């Protein structure tokens, strides 16, 4: 999952980025409100971790601007301002979660997972399609109860397709959602990963819609 971290403090930003990466997230990091608004409007992030006391543009202003622009991505506000009034204001402005600093990285990751899941209308923590079960927290995939080893990219790609089903995602959309900044994307990378996933999980799980992209079939085709 690709998220945008908005934090002006270099040490905290660095720590959060490293911690969330350890927990399987693709993290892009910006340090001011204007950059945050620009990036969030340009890229399809699964969620954003937003600090409030930001240079150039306050976090709450960024939040308000996002919601005005009809962007519905989950926003987790991470801030030192933890007065009740601040929290209420943040939630009223469209924040999906409000966490006071300091925060445990595992908790932060769990909250992000929950936000992303809910944003995709998934009530369960584990994603299920056919005989494949994906556990985002443990980052494990089982097929018919048997663990299947997937690379990071393969896992991210599968998770994205499972979350988005039954929507069809183009190759570009998948690239945008799976790769962070500065990561080399081979021109046929998505095709290669899909190929590997089909080999490991069965050919019927991911279907190609010619000229459009890929879609995950929740039920096995008859």
């Amino acid at each position, binding site marked *: 999952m690709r998220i945008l971290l908005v934090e002006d403090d270099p040490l905290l930003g660095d*720590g*959060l980025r*490293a911690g969330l990466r350890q927990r399987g997230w693709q993290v892009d990091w910006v340090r001011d409100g204007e*950059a945050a608004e620009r990036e969030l409007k340009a890229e399809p992030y699964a969620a954003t971790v937003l600090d409030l006391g930001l*240079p150039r543009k306050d976090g709450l202003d960024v939040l308000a601007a996002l919601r005005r622009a009809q962007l519905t991505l989950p926003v987790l506000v991470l801030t030192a301002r933890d007065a009740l009034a601040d929290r209420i204001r943040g939630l009223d402005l469209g924040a999906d979660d409000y966490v006071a600093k*300091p*925060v445990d990285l*595992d908790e932060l990751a769990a909250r992000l997972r929950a936000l992303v899941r809910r944003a995709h209308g998934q009530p369960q923590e584990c994603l299920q399609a056919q005989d494949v079960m994906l556990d985002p927290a443990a980052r494990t995939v089982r097929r018919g109860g048997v663990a299947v080893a997937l690379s990071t990219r393969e896992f991210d790609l599968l998770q994205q397709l499972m979350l988005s089903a039954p929507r069809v995602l183009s190759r570009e959309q998948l690239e945008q959602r799976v790769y962070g900044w500065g990561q080399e994307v081979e021109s046929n990378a998505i095709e290669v990963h899909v190929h590997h996933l089909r080999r490991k999980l069965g050919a019927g799980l991911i279907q190609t819609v010619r000229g459009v992209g890929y879609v995950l079939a929740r039920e096995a085709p008859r």
Partner: protein
Amino acid sequence: MLGLVLGLVTLVWISTALLTWFDTRHELEELLDSHLAQAAAVLVAQQYDADDERHVDAPRLHRYATTVAFQVFHDGGLALHSANAPRTPLVDLGAGGGGFHRVRRNGVAWRVFVTRGRERDITVLVGERLDSRDAILWAVLGSASWPLLLALPLLALGVWWAVRRGVAPLHRLGRQLSQRRPQALEALALDSTDRELLPLLDALNGLFARIDALMGVERRFTADAAHELRTPIAAIRAQAQVALAEGDDELRRHALNATIAGCDRAARLIDQLLTLSRIESSGVLVTAAVDLAALTQRVVGELAPRSIAKAQTIEFDAAAPALITGDETLLAVLLRNLVDNAIRYSPRGARIVVAVRGAGAEVELDIDDSGPGLDEVARQRLGERFFRVGASEESGSGLGWSIVRRIAEAHGLRLEAQSPGKLGGLGVRVRGATPAPAARP
């Protein structure tokens, strides 16, 4: 208070009564004595006309006449006398003394006037009983005293009422104060009728306002400290957690170094908060003559290694000592913050020039760098607590400028940021405005 007033009133009242007594007695004596003398003179004159009627009793004229007596002696014998006068002279005539006498005859005190005829041997004695005089005196005094005696309790009542009314606002104020919670520092309400209490209330409210301001500084300090420490602590926590979970040596070392840097930053933040709190809560400066040039040189010397580590060129320029009056410790804090900012926010290879000129009110301190400078908006916001210059790699506390501004204000120094300055980056100008340090209220 009330007892004192009543006692004083009683004392004044008794004094007035005594004065009236003595005054009345004196006036009465003069008046009656003059009547005695006049009566005697009339009697002497009569003796020349009524020469033949000897030993004739004078008629009793009036009931009051019993208190008055006269004797006329002619050639040594009693020629004429009033009914109540004895046959022997009231006053021993041998003494030969004319004028007034005080005598006692048969247990009765008399005031007697003696006079003699000029040509013949006539002696006239006119006497008046002293107890009659005293009776008049008592009557006069009595009639004068009744109103005073009546007035005394009325006066006491009035004084009691006035005093009670006068101190009532004090009682109300006392009640209001005793019912206050220690945190309540809003101004006391003033009744428009309690005008006498205005100075007291003003003084009290002034005190409350000052305490409130001081407590506000403390409260803000606590709140700010709690808030601003959250970010470095969050950073320390996140980095430590990353280090714990990291398998890669390089990345773990990076996270651990970042953890230590976070601790240093938290410590620095606490130092700066404390400094700011000290400046804000203590208006009094420890002032002495300070050579700003020497002090600046020392600070630049202290910080130069950091500048050199960034491959910057740092220069100090002062031709002569620059004496000003101020608090050396605080001025050093001001200088350290400004020079540190220049080093911190200028890129590698930049040039920094610190110059001191003049002295006293004309002192000039310039700190210029060839860094990126600051835009108008950022310059305006400098000195706002916790305002950090945007998107900078450096992790300042956002308190440096607040501290610098506070110290400058406390010393009556003007502070100004120019961008672009002399070297193209930020130029900070500190100018002496007042020769003497101005203590903050």
